[in-house]
């Protein structure tokens, strides 16, 4: 396994994730829609994705243009900046999940954001995106997220208040296809030897019993 460094800090490697170097990926036939109102950020996103072998990239600079595109074209992956003129990235994904064509509604969607405003935290949580990635983008994080959205066996949930990938998926355990079945932030698999005496059943029962107030 390799750990990949952030682009920016070569002198001080920052390990951002663990990907299998020998894992094969094929994005040649996939079509992605990338939306960012800053043309340089858009260039960075497109540059990283084309480096991964993606050939069919549709670039848009506003949420409205992106929505118009999605009304007529089906894509395999959407990357949208959170801040966009007129229709922001969150509203774009919310529209996609609720109102877009049936074939497009479950399209994997990733939001990229430089900073989430306090007033938009709930909107971000509820918009239905598969992931929210923080800028500046790191190729390793981006690739890891793309692999997850493509391969995770995550449920799609439709309720009155939320439409999108199951947000409780972390509690369902690691994705079965994830290398060695563990995420990088899981506890170490190494367990130390037990110390001290084993507790009696009564002592264990006491630990889980609801405590009664003495008052």
């Amino acid at each position, binding site marked *: 396994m390799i750990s990949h460094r952030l682009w920016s800090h070569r002198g001080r490697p920052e390990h951002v994730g663990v990907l299998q170097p020998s894992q*094969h990926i094929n*994005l040649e036939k996939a079509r992605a829609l990338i939306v960012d109102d800053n043309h340089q950020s858009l260039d960075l996103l497109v540059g990283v994705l*084309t*480096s991964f*072998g993606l050939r069919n990239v549709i670039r848009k600079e506003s949420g409205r243009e992106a929505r118009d595109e999605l009304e007529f074209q089906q894509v395999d992956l959407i990357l949208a900046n959170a801040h966009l003129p007129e229709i922001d990235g969150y509203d774009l994904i919310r529209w996609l999940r609720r109102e877009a064509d049936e074939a497009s509604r479950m399209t994997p969607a990733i939001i990229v954001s*430089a900073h989430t405003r306090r007033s938009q935290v709930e909107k971000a949580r509820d918009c239905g995106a598969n992931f929210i990635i923080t800028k500046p983008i790191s190729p*390793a994080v981006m690739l890891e997220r793309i692999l997850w959205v493509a391969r995770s*066996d995550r449920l799609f*949930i439709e*309720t009155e208040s939320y439409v999108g990938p199951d947000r409780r998926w972390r509690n369902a355990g690691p994705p079965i296809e994830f290398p060695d079945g563990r995420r990088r932030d899981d506890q170490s698999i190494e367990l130390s030897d037990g110390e001290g005496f084993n507790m009696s059943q009564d002592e264990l029962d006491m630990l889980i019993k609801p405590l009664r107030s003495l008052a």
Partner: protein
Amino acid sequence: MTDAPAASQVRKIRMRPRLAQLMAEKSGGMYVAEALKRADATLETLREPSLTGIDELIVALDALLAAEAGAEPAARIEGLYQLAANIVGLCGAERNVAVQVAARSLCELLDEADGLSPSILAGVKVHIASIKLLHRAADNPALQGPILQGLASVLEKRRAESKAQG
């Protein structure tokens, strides 16, 4: 007595995106190691344009800050916030992480600002001056640490003021 609300309907669908099928195709494609190597090389070619982009964003921050006091404060805050956020987007090109921390701190300050009071303006000026110092600089924690600490105290002080005002 009112009727209990009807239980909301929950529909669960097993997702299997088309992307999964396409990515699994064996003909063509590449290994993860190669993909990351290529992405690094691509970003390296975009390093200088990104740094130049940050130069321009700093100039724009200065210009907006110097705009007439009569200009709409909310629009100025929004403009400054967007410029700071754009710096965050490009600062992967920097050789130190401090620009990112400073620009994000500026975003926080502006996001929490309820107007362009003298203390907010002073905080914004300190942030812009710090970003100028840190931009294009080599990674030097001994130099950058105190600057970032100073910015953190500006933000902390502003939050304390805001809390005191209720």
